[in-house]
């Protein structure tokens, strides 16, 4: 028998999607993939789910915080969606603690996740021995994109290490270009800091910072040099950078007004929209001092605990479909990410993604992203300090380090 709510959903599904109202495996999915490219990507999931006999009811809400808020509100309010998107990491910790999520242990066992997914990602969705979410993709967060044209004009070779970077930036500057395209919003300021920390400090230092909150490390010389490197980058951004959207910064690279940009692999979407191909008009690389340190984040779907068994079935079906090889590769192509499954054929992806898929398979080349290591509250508090440091020319490195150390030792 239908509850009134599910009847309502069925009506909604008919109106919105004109899809057959199969009560059996209908899944309402809340996610924040709303732009054209993202939309094409999520369509892969929907199509595959439909092909497997389910009905995908799409609830797209732009802005991660908006979508998560809506999903959590509904879950707590007793009207959960079938599945909801999170960033891989600690965003759903509280839901697990409050026993609001269903585990997907069976699925993980059936598909043998330990063998096919990066270990850090399996760990990122596991709480107390149970698996609570399905990772669907990997986004590299510390790419350096550069305009071949701009570099050529400034007579610069693409940098391959942090040592190379500064001379290259100087040359770009003297050529009258914006050396580093930057979007001065808090999260990108933090992301740039993470890029420096991963690139110069490597995996252990990165984890010591965000994961272990190692105050002693923060007060040490290595961290100080990272902080100084970060601040040094400020000399190479243009005065218009504060407040700029990331895609406007990318746009500067696309037009050849700026030389390079540190950004996650989603920036490829902007290049693609402008008709550019990686390896041709623009290049991509990851700078790292200690072997490869590829910062990996991504997206997962979590499944609220439900009373309705037909919905539980839909959840199981969806969980399976999301990780199927065909789904994985098609989704990654559209999204600009890389498949979370290590055993799929990545030859159809672009050059940047192909580069990355090698690192993804190599545990030593990886750094878990910020979100995997620290709860949002801590991330946010640190982000405020980073942003202040970046923007306030009077704030000394000592002050910064003291503030960071204090915040890390607080309770979150």
């Amino acid at each position, binding site marked *: 028998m239908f509850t009134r709510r599910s009847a309502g959903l069925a009506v909604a599904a008919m109106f919105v999607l004109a899809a057959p109202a199969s009560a059996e495996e209908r899944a309402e999915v809340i996610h924040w993939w709303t732009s054209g490219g993202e939309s094409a990507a999520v369509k892969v999931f929907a199509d595959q789910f439909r092909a497997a006999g389910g009905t995908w009811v799409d609830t797209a809400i*732009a802005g991660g915080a908006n979508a998560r808020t809506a999903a959590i509100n*509904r879950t707590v309010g007793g009207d959960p969606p079938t599945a909801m998107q999170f960033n891989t990491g600690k965003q759903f910790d509280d839901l697990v603690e409050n026993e609001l999520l269903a585990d997907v242990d069976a699925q993980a066992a059936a598909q043998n996740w330990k063998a096919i997914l990066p270990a850090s990602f399996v760990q990122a969705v596991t709480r107390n021995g149970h698996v609570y979410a399905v990772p669907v993709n990997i986004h590299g967060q510390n790419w350096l994109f550069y305009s071949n044209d701009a570099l050529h004009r400034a007579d610069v070779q693409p940098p391959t290490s942090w040592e190379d970077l500064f001379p290259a930036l100087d040359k770009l500057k003297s050529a009258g270009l914006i050396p580093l395209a930057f979007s001065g919003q808090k999260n990108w300021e933090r992301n740039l800091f993470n890029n420096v920390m991963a690139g110069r400090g490597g995996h252990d230092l990165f984890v010591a910072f965000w994961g272990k909150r190692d105050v002693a490390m923060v007060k040490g010389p290595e961290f100080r040099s990272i902080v100084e490197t970060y601040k040094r980058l400020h000399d190479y951004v243009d005065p218009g950078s504060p407040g700029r959207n990331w895609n406007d910064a990318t746009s500067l690279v696309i037009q050849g007004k700026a030389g390079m940009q540190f950004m996650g692999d989603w920036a490829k979407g902007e290049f693609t929209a402008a008709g550019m191909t990686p390896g041709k008009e623009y290049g991509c690389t990851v700078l790292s001092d200690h072997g490869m340190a590829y910062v990996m984040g991504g997206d997962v779907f979590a499944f609220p605990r439900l009373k309705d068994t037909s919905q539980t079935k839909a959840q199981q079906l969806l969980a399976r479909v999301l990780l199927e090889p065909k789904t994985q590769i098609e989704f990654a192509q559209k999204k600009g990410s890389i498949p979370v499954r290590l055993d799929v054929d990545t030859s159809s992806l672009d050059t940047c993604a192909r580069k990355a898929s090698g690192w993804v398979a190599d545990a030593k080349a990886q750094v878990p992203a910020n979100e995997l290591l620290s709860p949002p509250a801590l991330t946010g508090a640190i982000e405020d300090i980073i942003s202040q440091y970046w923007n306030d020319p009077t704030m000394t490195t000592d002050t910064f380090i003291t503030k960071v150390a204090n915040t890390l030792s607080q309770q979150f």
Partner: protein
Amino acid sequence: MSGTTLIPRGRPPGKLSPARMGLYAFLAICALFFLTPLYVMLVTSLKAMPEIRQGYILAWPSAPSLAAWGKAWFSACTGLSCNGIRVGFVNSLRIMVPSVIVSITVGAITGYALSFWRPRGAVVLFGVLIAVAFIPYQVFIYPLVRIFSHLGLNNSVPGIVLIHTIFGLPTMTLIFRNHFAALPEELFKAARVDGAGFWRIFGAIMLPMALPIIVVAVILQVTGIWNDFIFGLVFAGRANLPMTVQLNNIVNSTQGEREYNVEMAATLLTATVPLVVYFVSGRWFVRGIAAGAVKG
């Protein structure tokens, strides 16, 4: 008491003295200041993306095109579906019309009861209403979600109408109370001697006198409710999502590529309804305020 005449002050229009030329010049500069953002939005919506990337925000488009408008209305992706922002248009109307009516009705009655009848505790109630007017309402969302789901009001048009009533109440009560408080109390006494009771006085005497202020209330509420995004998202339910949710999906994507021309077109399209209400009722708006909203 009624029939506020709206006669402009000052000298009749004559020949242009230097002072008047200065006046017109100043007004023109102000108008320019007010119109610039609209102009930027308009020309951006008529440009293609490569031209926008050039960064000449004030330049007239080299090849003006309504493509972005078409895309915004018909085919922009807002998630899995790519049907533009028109999807939520009807929903927005379905939410707005009853919300405007109910919130204004409750606000008018509350303002009336508080101004003339002053039952015990009225000050406290009014104080709470004013305090709420100053608090960011997002703060209330979480507990209200819990309350609403207990009451089974989640995800329904009545639910979202109630939400708009709840959050419109402070402002609506305030303007109606101020309006009624500015009316002579003797009018109310006369009606009581004539034997009219609470509802009769409201319906036969006060409400007809409040017509202009009702227009003001309608304008304020239409704008507020039409532009609301967060309440619609959280309380309306996915079958009733308003247009602004689609707009937000086009505008607010975190990692997706952005099409500013489509965003601007979508914004202008979304703003059409309140804009039309403004331009049509601008005269009434001023008159409505003149009739007493400002007194008290």
